[in-house]
C-alpha cells in the first residue's frame, strides 16, 4: 500500500521528491529495543545493512498465473485475474527461493520486498508468493477461498508455486530449491515443507521460518486485543484516533513538503510525535483489523455471503462497499474463525471436529516433522509481539540449535538489520 500513500500525499507537480528532511531532535533515542516501535518502524538507520535494489528494467520480473481458469468470480473482483508473483533474477545459475508472505501480504508488499532483498543478497533467485490470506490469493488460488486452515493453505501454495515455476519457464538457470516464509507465511512454510517431503516436486534443500506464529489463534487474539482494548465497537474513538494521527502527519507534510511515507519519514514522525505504547498498540491493532476485514470480506463474498455481506445480496462493481468496510471494523480475526471458518468447514465435512481444527492452526500439528527436518530453521525475536507466553520455549524445545533468536525487533522489525541479513546469508550458505 506504500505506493498509494506516496501518490496520495505526493506534491502533484513534477518534482515529487522530499523537499527537506525534518531534523531528528538531539538526544532522541531511537527505539532499538522497543518491540512495538520496531514492529511499526523497522530497523533504525544505524543498524541497517546495504541491500541490493530491484529494477524492473534489469533484475526484477512480475508475472501472473491462472490457477483455476474456469472459476467464476464475483463482479467486485473483476480485476483479480490470476495470482501475481515477482521474480528477482540472479545474472547466472543460482538456487531459487520461494518466499511466502505474512498475513494479508501481496507478492509486492513492503515487508516482502525487504526480505526478498536480503535473500537476493545471499545469492539466490527469489520468487514472492502472496499470503493465502491476501484477497487476490483467496479469489484466484485458494481451492475453498476460506484461508487459515494451514494444511489446505499449504496445498494451495504448493499448487501455486508449481504454476509459477512453469510460468517462469526453463530458461532460468536454477540449481536447487529453497523455501522461506515470514509471519503467518512462516507457519505456511512449515506445512508446505512437510507436503514437499511427501510430494517431492521441489525437494527443498533449505527451509526458513521467520517470525512464525506458534499458534495462529493465540497470535491473532493478541492482535485482535490491541484493537479491541482501545477502539472496540466505538466508531467515535476510531474517528478520533485516525483524525488526530492524520492531522499530525499532515502537519509534518505541511512543514517539510515531504510526502513519501517511507521508513525515514515515519522515523521522523515518530521522533516528533513520540507516541506512547497505547498509541502504537492502537495503530498495530487497527492495521491488522483492516487486513482481517479485507480477508473476511473476500472470503465471505467468494462463499456466498452471510458473514459481512448479507446472503443473496452480492454487490456489483458499481455498488458502494463502504458499509462493509465499516461493518468489518467490528469483526475480529477470532470472529472470522468462529462465524465463517468453522461453520464453512463443518458444512463441508460432517466429521469436522473443532478440536482437531484448532490443532491444525498450531505448528505443533507438524511437530514430528519439525523435529526431524534437519534442513529447516526458525528465526524469531525474543520480543516478537505475536508470541504468547510459552511459545518461545516450545520453539526452543522442538528446534534446538536450529532456532535463532534475535534479542530485538518486535514482529518483523529487523529485516533490514545487518545481524539479520548476515544470518540469512549464513543460513542459506552463501
Amino acid at each position: 500500500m506504500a505506493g498509494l500513500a506516496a501518490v496520495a500525499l505526493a506534491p502533484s507537480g513534477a518534482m515529487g521528491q522530499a523537499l527537506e528532511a525534518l531534523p531528528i531532535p538531539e538526544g532522541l533515542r531511537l527505539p532499538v529495543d522497543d518491540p512495538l516501535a520496531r514492529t511499526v518502524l523497522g530497523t533504525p538507520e544505524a543498524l541497517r545493512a546495504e541491500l541490493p535494489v530491484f529494477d524492473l528494467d534489469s533484475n526484477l520480473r512480475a508475472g501472473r498465473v491462472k490457477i483455476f481458469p474456469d472459476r467464476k468470480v464475483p463482479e467486485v473482483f473483476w480485476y483479480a485475474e490470476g495470482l501475481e508473483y515477482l521474480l528477482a533474477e540472479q545474472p547466472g545459475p543460482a538456487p531459487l527461493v520461494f518466499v511466502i508472505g505474512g498475513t494479508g501480504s501481496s507478492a509486492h508488499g513492503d515487508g516482502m520486498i525487504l526480505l526478498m532483498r536480503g535473500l537476493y543478497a545471499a545469492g539466490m533467485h527469489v520468487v514472492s508468493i502472496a499470503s493465502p490470506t491476501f484477497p487476490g490469493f483467496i479469489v484466484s488460488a485458494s481451492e475453498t477461498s476460506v484461508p487459515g486452515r494451514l494444511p489446505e493453505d499449504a496445498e494451495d501454495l504448493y499448487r501455486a508455486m508449481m504454476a509459477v515455476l512453469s510460468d517462469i519457464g526453463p530458461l532460468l538457470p536454477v540449481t536447487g530449491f529453497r523455501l522461506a516464509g515470514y509471519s503467518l507465511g512462516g507457519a505456511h512454510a512449515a506445512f508446505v515443507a512437510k507436503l514437499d517431503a511427501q510430494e517431492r516436486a521441489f525437494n527443498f534443500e533449505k527451509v526458513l521460518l521467520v517470525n512464525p506464529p506458534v499458534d495462529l489463534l493465540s497470535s491473532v487474539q493478541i492482535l485482535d486485543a490491541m484493537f479491541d482494548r482501545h477502539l472496540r465497537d466505538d466508531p467515535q474513538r476510531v474517528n478520533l484516533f485516525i483524525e488526530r494521527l492524520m492531522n499530525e502527519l499532515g502537519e509534518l507534510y505541511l512543514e517539510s513538503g515531504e510526502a513519501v511515507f517511507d521508513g525515514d519519514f515515519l522515523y521522523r514522525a515518530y521522533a516528533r510525535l513520540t507516541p506512547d505504547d497505547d498509541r502504537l498498540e492502537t495503530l498495530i491493532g487497527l492495521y491488522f483489523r483492516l487486513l482481517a476485514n479485507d480477508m473476511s470480506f473476500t472470503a465471505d463474498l467468494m462463499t456466498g455471503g452471510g458473514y459481512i455481506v448479507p446472503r443473496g445480496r452480492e454487490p456489483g462493481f458499481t455498488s458502494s462497499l463502504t458499509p462493509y468496510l465499516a461493518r468489518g471494523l467490528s469483526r475480529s480475526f477470532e470472529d472470522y474463525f468462529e462465524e465463517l471458518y468453522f461453520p464453512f468447514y463443518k458444512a463441508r465435512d460432517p466429521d469436522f471436529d473443532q478440536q482437531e481444527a484448532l490443532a491444525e492452526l498450531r505448528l505443533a500439528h507438524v511437530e514430528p516433522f519439525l523435529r526431524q527436518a534437519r534442513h529447516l530453521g526458525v528465526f524469531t525475536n525474543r520480543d516478537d509481539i505475536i508470541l504468547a507466553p510459552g511459545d518461545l520455549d516450545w520453539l526452543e524445545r522442538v528446534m534446538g540449535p536450529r532456532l535463532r533468536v534475535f534479542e530485538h525487533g518486535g514482529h518483523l522489525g529487523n529485516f533490514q538489520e545487518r545481524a539479520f541479513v548476515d544470518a540469512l546469508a549464513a543460513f542459506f550458505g552463501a
Partner: protein
Amino acid sequence: MRFPATTALAALTLSACAGTAPLEAPSAPVYPIAVYDPFEPVNRSIYRFNASFDRYIFLPVVRGYEWLLPDPVERRVSSFFSNLGEIRNAANGLLQARPEVASRATIRFAVNSTVGLLGLFDVAGAMGVEQQREDFGQTLGRWGVSNGPYIVLPILGPSNLRDTTGTVVDRGVMTQLPPWDIVIDEVYVNPAVYGLEAVDERHLNPFRYYGTGSPFEYEYVRYLYTKKREFDVKR
C-alpha cells in the same frame, strides 16, 4: 507485512474530514471514511474504466517511453513541464493574495527558463528556491469553497467538484491569457506535446490501480485524495 510504509497508510484509511457527509443510515456505526460521494455508482464505473485504460493503453505507452529514453532525458522532460507549471503556480498565488507564493513561482520560472535552459534544469531548486504547486482548485479552497461531491474523472482520476472546476479554469480559461497564450502558441504547437506531458505525468506517478489488493481500495483512494487536498489548500 512489514510496518514502515504501510502503517501510516492503514492509519490514514478512515477519518473525518471537513465538508463530507456519511453515507449510511444513522443507526449503523458511522465511520468517517464515507466521503460525500452521491455519484458513487458512476464514479466506480469510471474508476474501473481508468484501471483498464491504464493497464492496456496508458502504462504500456509509459513503459515504452521509459524504455526508449535514458533516465536523465526523462528528468529533463519532467523538469521542462514542471517549469511551465510555474505560470499556473504564480497566477494562483496572485489569485490567493499570497505575493510570496506568486513571486517564488515567478523567480523560479525566470531563472529556470533562462539559466536552466528553457526549464530543462531546475537551477532555482538547486539554489534552494523550491517549487510550491498551486492550482485553481486550491485557490477556490483558500477562499472557502468546499469540496462538493467526489468525482472520478476519466483518465485523470480522483477529483471533486471544486477541483474539477479548478482544472477546467487552469487548463481552459487561463491558457487564453498571457503569458500562457504565448506558451500555447510556441510550445504546444502539436498535439503530441500534450501527449508527452500526459505520459510524463503518468511516468512520475507510482500509483497502480488495484495495487493495494484491498477490496476497499476505492474507499481508501477517495479518502486519501480528500485529505491530501485539504492539506494542499492549507499549504
